[in-house]
């Protein structure tokens, strides 16, 4: 299977709440995706660099500290300038509903809040990356 979906999961900023990110990493691996976990305290620059180097289809960002409105759009901007145009970006964490439209405008395809099942995330990623030539 050379056509496995490749996903990068990272936590930008200083937030240490990594339970959700780790569960998503393991869950997506269990449904057959190849997942790289970049870990905590990575800068938007490091995330974009890793996404390009690892040639991923998907980037998953997690933040629970309230810094998402600064960190997520910054990551998107760098990704748009430096990375391939078709990387799917999804996000999770404690993200107030009113912030979501702005994040989507910045190019984040979906924001998954607390209580989202692994299945929901996996299906979303599978549907959005379907037919993508690798």
């Amino acid at each position, binding site marked *: 299977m050379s056509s496995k979906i490749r996903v990068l999961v990272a936590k930008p900023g200083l*937030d240490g709440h990594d339970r959700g990110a780790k569960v998503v990493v393991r*869950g997506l691996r269990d449904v057959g995706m190849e997942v790289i*976990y970049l870990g905590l*305290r990575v800068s938007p620059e490091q995330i974009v660099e890793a996404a390009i180097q690892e040639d991923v289809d998907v980037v998953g960002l997690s933040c629970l500290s309230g810094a998402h409105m600064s960190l997520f759009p910054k990551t998107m901007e760098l990704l748009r300038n430096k990375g391939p145009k078709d990387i799917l970006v999804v996000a999770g964490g404690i993200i107030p509903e009113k912030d979501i439209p702005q994040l989507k405008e910045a190019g984040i395809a979906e924001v998954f809040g607390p*209580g989202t099942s*692994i299945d929901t995330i996996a299906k979303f990623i599978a549907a959005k990356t379907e037919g993508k030539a690798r």
Partner: protein
Amino acid sequence: MAEKKAEESSERKKEFKTTVGGIPIKKVYGPVDSAPVDPNKDLAAPGEYPFTRNIMPTGYRGRLWTMRQYAGFATVEETNERFKYLYKNGQTGFSVAFHLPTQEGYDSDHLLSAGEVGKCGVAIDSLQDMERLWEGIPLGDVSTSMTINATAPIILAMYIAAAEKQGVDRKKLNGTVQNDILKEYIARNTYIFGPAPSMRLVTDICTFCAQQLPQWNSISISGYHMREAGATAAQEAAFTLANGIAYVQAMIDTGMEVDSFAPRFSFFFAAYTNVLEEVAKYRALRRTWAKIMKDRFGAKNPRSLMLRYHVQTDGFTLTAQQPLNNVVRVTLQALAAVLGGCQSLHTNSFDEALSLPSERAVQVALRTQQIIAEESGVADVVDPLGGSYYVESLTNEIEKRVLAYLDDIDRIGGSLKAIEKGYIQQEIANSSYEHQKAVDSGEQVIVGLNKYTTQEQHGAELLHVGADLEAKQMDRLSKLRAGRDNHKVKLLLDKVHGVAKSNDNIMPVMIEAVEAYATLGEISDALRQAFGEYRERNVV
């Protein structure tokens, strides 16, 4: 009726457990199940070794638990205003949340602080901020709990310096620094340096407090964050006590006598919604710790044997869906904490799965504690569930599981080694993943999330932290750097570096450095140069 049904093997579930990965539960419990392991001692009266029933003979009949709500409001001015309001209204116990840059050793103007300033807590960059935080609040009359770990030496130094500027003798200071670095590598993740130099900073604080701050709790050994990360009740208890053992041993290794510091050790645990398992957990914790301190470390002072602890209701259990349901969850969790005999309690706000808490939600959270204290009657008797066949059996079972884990960790070579190997992280990650699968499959019901769901929108009023704060804090820093004696700061930062490289206690030079208005980030950098930085191994 229920029993008859059970006999016909038509029970609701194939297997009953306290929680996912928790303890299997029988249909009914009797005297045989609840028999104490050591019948002469295990259920001694409250206030008597091994303190299963309570560390105090009178429980809450003497004094209620401290209702200590954790809070930090972005700027020092806002937080100070809030604290002054609370102080005028009779509150004397404060709990300070620091924003992440302060916790991880960065000033507000550092590149990595972008977006984080004032989120999750108050921004403290220098002694100047600490002085403003406590303006108008006499630090000799209050007790302050500070959730600070990697940068605890700096923050404690600032607190002492701020108090002395108010004219308060440091001997009179009352409060707690979390100062529990081991659990940061396991779960909370605000470490800076590697385990070895970090342990040295921990013991420096404990030694300094034992000598100079007689009323200060020098460490709060925390299970809360491990529970949040996915640990079961028994794992939370076991890994916390394993860390506790590591700290006591580290202190003894520095040459301190156990009874000279152990009375100032305190603990911090979570409260989940499974009320009776939580009550059993606290009872088992008190008993196990007392035995460890007596048998393993030879402590003689009764206060060294007493497990004193703070409880916070568990944030992970709150749902973003139908958020008002969280009021009920928090009530059950707070009830468990009180039935279990905690010394202080923080209740979460119902909107915390959505954002940082709003004022209205914070008030409901505090009122929850007050209703339990004043209306429920559970605070009128010590250890009300003692003697319950089920609770005694669960208490024994948790103690058994804790001891089994402690044996495993001893075999690995102690909790520091177990952390370096990723053993503790892996155990917790496994429990967390098991929980997620059980929730996704519907085996573990969470009301409003995977059962009894509705389409309603929450419509809660949420707290918003303004973005202008970052600029304000940066401006303040540049003024501070322009107005201080920078030559002196440079010399003191070199001195911090030198002491870090030596075996001397770090605290005296910390106090000197903060008094010269060296910033938290500058001091952290001096320590980084001496100790290097830690990069975690990712255990998923």
